[in-house]
């Protein structure tokens, strides 16, 4: 019933450009088995994050409830519901990196970037670089044997 109602509304209010794009991306994967994660990855790659309207659109296309799609998005650490910061510093906090100083690196990263809203510091559990830790990914680039000084070097390369 709700579905029929939604379709009627759609005829009256056209979709936003974003929603159109989301639907188009989703349709590319809709024929695959179990396509939801593939779609969420593709939508996030396109828009940078997954907005409420994306969730509605995907749910409609896959004939899933909005709750089911939202529940899947919120389960996984990778999916974001807001735009990303300009810079990302992901520090591994797992055991192998802790054995070579990850706790100190994590604390230093949190402290250094605490005042910067354009930098997202996130904990990650393992990049699979466990022989050359501590590991961190700075703006998507994995680095090994990272020191506190490397954080300063990275920051000096960013324009404010």
């Amino acid at each position, binding site marked *: 019933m709700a579905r029929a109602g939604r379709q009627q509304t759609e005829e009256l209010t056209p979709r936003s450009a974003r929603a159109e794009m989301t639907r188009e991306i989703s349709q590319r994967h809709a024929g695959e*088995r*179990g*396509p*939801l*994660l*593939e779609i*969420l*990855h593709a939508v996030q790659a396109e828009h940078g994050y997954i907005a409420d309207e994306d969730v509605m659109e995907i749910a409609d296309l896959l004939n899933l409830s909005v709750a*089911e799609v939202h*529940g*899947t998005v919120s*389960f*996984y*650490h*990778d*999916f974001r519901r807001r735009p990303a910061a300009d810079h990302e510093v992901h520090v591994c906090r*797992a*055991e*192998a*990196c*802790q*054995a*070579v100083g990850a*706790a100190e690196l994590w604390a230093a990263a949190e402290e250094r970037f605490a005042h910067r809203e354009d930098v997202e510091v996130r904990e*990650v*559990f*393992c*990049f*699979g*670089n*466990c*022989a*050359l*830790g501590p*590991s961190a990914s700075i703006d998507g680039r*994995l*680095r*090994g*044997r990272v020191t506190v000084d490397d954080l300063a070097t990275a920051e000096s390369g960013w324009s404010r």
Partner: protein
Amino acid sequence: MTTVWVPSDSSARAVGADEVAAALAEVEGVSVRRNGTRGMLWREPLVEVETDRGRVGYATVAADDIPALLEAGMLSGADHETCIGVVDEDPWLTAQDRVSLARIGVAEPTDIHAYEAQGGWAGLRRAVELDPADVVEEVVASGLRGRGGAGFPTGIKWRTVLQARDGGADQAFVACNLDEGDSGTFADRILAEGDPFTLVEGMTIAAVTVGATEGYIYCRSEYPDAIARLRDAIAVAAEHGYLGDDVAGSGRSFRLQVRVGAGAYICGEETSMLESLEGRRGEVRAKPPIPALHGLWDSPTVVNNLLSFAAIPMILADGGEAYAARGVGRSRGTQVFQLAGNIARGGVYEAPLGITLRELVEDIGGGTRTGRPVRAVQVGGPLGAYLPADRLDVPMGYEELAEAGGMLGHGGLVVFDDTVDMARMARFAMEFCSVESCGKCTPCRIGSTRGVETIDRITSTPAGAEGRDQLFVLLEDLCATMTTGSLCAMGGLTPVPVRSALTHFPEDFGGSPR
């Protein structure tokens, strides 16, 4: 033209291999090629120069070092303080028994001709000639057990799926668990990046055996290089007729695709992985039913770890007996051990099961990177026990480690020196569980949070204070509840590192009553 090899492995790239490759590409008369890593990660970036003597290696090269190395005669393989000689003759490599890693780090990872020249596809060719039941018996005879950590016999699993197919199931699937989230483990990543065809071949053998026409590799999103490499390898294998409608001329069809996880540790648990592959929250399923009978989309499914699949090509090519000839007790074959954490010579080391932990940590790994004494080694990932330095003589086998209170897991070892605070590590085990629990069962979801709180209260209460002893009772009670009441290994095994820290390192908790 002198050919110079620079690894494209992501660990090598994390310490500057791309910059080294770019600097070498500028040099006249040099042709740069990108191999996978040899697995000697402490030597990365390891640059190899082709000479008349063989490939001569230069270790931990930085882009800035290139002019001096050229000056010293690197292109003719001249000696230098960073030179390790002919790489193929390096004792760290020659002492290994490389079965799954046989081809790693030699050629470009997606060079299918090099793969074939090194013995690739021989296992698949034999598998398509044999009756499926005979392939299964070959795997049973090998004694191969699930390398993801559970140690279930791979051949029995395949036999179950094959019987379900013979019993009338009209579809079956093959799925590879490449959600290698355990800290201290990276063998799957190195193999996927450095020799992806070995996985493709192992999975294809499984597929033609059980009659699966579709396969999925579930790879964690933290491994972008592995994802890209596998997708390339799948395309190349399909072009050459090893995937598609007519696998290796057998008339059988198999299609393989990579699916990407989204940063949830629990999806390494096989039923959670199946949920995720089907596009849902990665919440674990209760077993039974087992995935071999009711797996992906309720069909019989072979779910194996990457390392299990990677042993298959050799088992089919050389026979199960040849694989079973290696090992100890009921742990047959080889294991790709991963030396990680605070270790001088970290990397991947393949050896027959039964090698002792001490040999791996001290002789092969060279002790700690910091040069301080080893205090603890965590074996088998975040759910594995912390073993103290005086208990390292245990042979690395499933039963042998279980007897010592530990587990083999995925074969990763994380070494800690004497500065480690084991109460902090115990707290971290609980914290990690609270962050990564799927939330489906209460002992894991709530127990882990209460575990963090209880350990905090222990470490913040002065020794001898009233009520402190009861906190230990409470923590033990919590551990018992999690162990017996959790749905899967995440909640069920989180108490293992906690209890081992309490047992072996009570002084770090300000002294425990007992």
